């Protein structure tokens, strides 16, 4: 298999010293979502870190996590800043809250992943697809392969899930 070694024209290179991110994206390259679980307080965290954001413990174990959740919030970019995204507007800036660990450690906390909305084959969503989703829409993770060690995690509509009838959208189209 050959790899593009870039994503949307942007070269991808994770520093060799950045062990945490290298591990996270290595799992992504296997199309597996793994997050660190703290060896002391058992809480999962995102993104990868060198210590636990909840108890400062340095030791963690990578465990598989189901890549399913809901749109917690979003923005819809019409004016792209980066050249790589200019031909893809509008695109969605998602904050996806995973079902795993929802409401923990505090009632309003959760594992919230940044991502873009994409089609089921990993292409940035069309305007028609964008109009189908809003806060509450159920999504599943998919991956776009970049190198042998790195795939980009993205989210697409979860076809198996029951979708809210009217996901909340910004009131002016």
């Amino acid at each position, binding site marked *: 298999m050959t790899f593009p070694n870039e994503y949307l024209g942007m070269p991808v290179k994770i520093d060799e010293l950045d062990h945490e991110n290298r591990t996270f994206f290595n799992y992504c390259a296997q199309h597996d979502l793994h997050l660190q679980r703290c060896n002391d307080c058992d809480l999962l965290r995102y993104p*990868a870190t060198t210590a636990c954001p909840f108890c400062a413990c340095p030791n963690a174990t990578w465990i598989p996590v189901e890549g399913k959740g809901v749109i917690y*919030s979003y*923005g*819809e970019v019409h004016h792209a800043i980066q050249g790589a995204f200019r031909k893809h507007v509008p695109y969605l800036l998602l904050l996806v809250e995973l079902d795993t660990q929802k409401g923990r450690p505090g009632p309003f906390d959760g594992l919230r992943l*940044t991502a873009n909305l994409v089609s089921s084959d990993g292409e940035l969503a069309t305007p028609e697809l964008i109009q189908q989703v809003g806060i509450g829409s159920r999504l599943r993770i998919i991956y776009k392969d970049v190198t042998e060690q790195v795939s980009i995690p993205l989210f697409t509509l979860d076809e198996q899930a029951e979708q809210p009838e009217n996901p909340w959208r910004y009131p002016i189209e």
Partner: protein
Amino acid sequence: MTQKTDIEATSNKFLRGKYAIAGIGETGYVRGSGRTTKALGTEAVRKAMQDAGLNPGDIDGMLSYSFNDSTFTPNIAGELGIRPNFYMDVYGGGSSIEALIGIAMGVIEAGMCNTVAIFRAMNGYSQVRIGGTGDRGAVRPLNGDSLFSRGYGLMSAGQMFCQSFMRHMYDYGTTPEQVASVKAIHSEHASNNPKAYYQKRVSVDDVLNSRMIVKPLHLLDCCVETDNGTALIVTSIDRARDCKHRPAVIQSVVGRCCKPRPDMHYQSGPISTVAGHYAKDILWPNAGVGPEDIDVTGSYDAFTFTSLMQLEDYGFCKKGEGGAYVSDGTIRLGGKRPNNTSGGHLCEGYTHGINMVIENVRQLRGDVDDSCPVGPDGHRLHSFDYQEGGCRQVRDVELTANLGWGTPGLGSAMVMAKG
């Protein structure tokens, strides 16, 4: 991890009333200054010294903030003949100025110097545009941390904050019209400010009809980018009383107060709550007053939403009622508690917060630089008629609050009193 609820204020509340802003200086707010940031910073500090009636030999401390888009202190001090006993140039934009004022008080209190000039000099339009984050069109490799941001086209301030803004609408039913009224009202204020870059009044419809940048932000929900130098001088209340103008007395200051997870604020708590939720518990007890006592606010308006969410989290209205608060006339000149009477970042110019402090110093002096005629004593004869092109001085200002914004998870604040 448990968060302390009874926050022990880090600044000694007995510094309340012991320090003041004694001088303020600004260049014009323009696009295309045609000058270096060194020239802008030098002019601003010189004007602040003149405003205070101080000489270069009276300034022995300096502070500045920048995003590596400015000139450092030694070059400004050198041009003006200032010999600092203390200086520091810090990295950062919004939320820096109130924090630096607190640091100035601290270093004077520590005996390190006596009088501190703080400046921000930037060609924010013609050189480094913050909205473009210095990367317009450029392709940099995606590394580990930027795969979570730039890899998703998530980079500018608007792109980083939009999810918090959208969630506020979802959580509380805040409407686009309510939000847009922040710009409409600040533009009314700017129409009475001869220095403002945008002096034309705009309506709520104008905001909603402007092109979408990143939903929920239209073009006119976003602040202007300008070139300018700005400065102010902090010193003890006793020294300030010997200066030219009535001092603006610092009652309380909060510097770079964070939500949990300052790296990624959206991982923690409701994202429709901002750092002001934490900062208020330092600001009000230290000031000895509450939001109901404040006459004029300067709530940072990088975006329409930022003014709204901060006013709400600092307690100027009930949580969730920010939309009503900013659209019911309260924050308008002539209203109960005007916000950003200069037009702020949305209209006057972009300085990462310092011009909103300068405006409140002028309000406390009772000598805002609008178009009212200057009387024989050198002070303006204010009409308190707020129609277009008229007055922007608020009557009988005793207390002001500045609410600085860095991100939804980062804020600073300050209360000042009439001297």
